[in-house]
């Protein structure tokens, strides 16, 4: 059996997603480099990937989160950046896991709005979560025909 030596042993990698009207990944990267102190930073289209020893990464994330706390989102990543098993430069097509991020980033503006709103509320005033939407009875043929006819006119 072959020996396996990790590329960045003992490090952690975190994604930093930014969905802000005021901050771009570039400004985020510039601020991150100012306080990086050896932490590896990779700028991406959605934000950053930060790799380093756990304490250093936590410190850096805490610092850049302050820029716009309700529009910057952080998540752990298992692989370091550029790992040939995950990097799309080697695989072609989107990176595995991208689709999940793509889906959630589409909804993140509602979460940002929620974060902004609850800052101004007391805990007892938080609105209740409504039960999930369920489909009503299906569209009957007559209504469907009426819609089609209306479109054709």
């Amino acid at each position, binding site marked *: 059996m072959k*020996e396996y030596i990790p590329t960045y042993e003992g490090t952690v990698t975190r994604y930093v997603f930014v969905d802000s009207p005021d901050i771009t990944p570039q400004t985020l990267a510039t601020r991150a480099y100012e306080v990086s102190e050896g932490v590896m930073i990779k700028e991406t289209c959605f934000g950053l990937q930060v790799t380093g020893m756990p304490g250093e990464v936590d410190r850096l994330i805490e610092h850049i989160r302050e820029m716009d706390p309700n529009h910057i989102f*952080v998540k*752990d990543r*298992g692989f370091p950046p550029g790992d040939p*098993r995950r990097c799309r430069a080697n695989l072609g097509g989107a990176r595995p896991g991208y689709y999940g991020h793509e889906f959630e980033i589409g*909804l993140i503006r509602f979460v940002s709005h*929620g974060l902004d*709103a609850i800052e101004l509320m007391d805990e007892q005033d938080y609105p209740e979560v409504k039960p999930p939407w369920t489909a009503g009875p299906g569209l009957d043929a007559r209504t469907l025909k009426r819609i089609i006819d209306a479109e054709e006119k």
Partner: protein
Amino acid sequence: MVKVFIYPSTSLILSDMVDRWGHEPLGAALQIRERIQTPGFDSPPLQMTPDDPKRGLRYAAVEVPSGVRGRMALMGPLIEEAEAAIVINDADFSFGCMGCARTNELVKLLIRHRDIPILELTYPRSEEEGVAFVGAIKQFLNGLSEGAA
């Protein structure tokens, strides 16, 4: 700090919310990282060893496909470690092959069988739902902090 299992285990939103309010999110990345960042014998591509499906036997029977047992070798220990859980029920993107789909069902079942606080939600689809979604998570996590204190 309470260890909170998140489902979908790759969720950016849940991972961030749990971390933001001072708890530890238990997601798939932690298990993947443990394998990828630990030196040992080469077992490509994800450093899953033949022992992993055996560990999965703890959660799924031997006639269950090895894909489910392999995935459970990652998710099972996290579920056991969890002190609370947040589950999003309409995470369609986590539906994949049959291995993923059955593992997802098993993960939800095992979480519900554990005697831990669970918050079940759906993704917000409007700004109003966003406020309720974030409020529910914050309330739940604050409740955990008070319980742990």
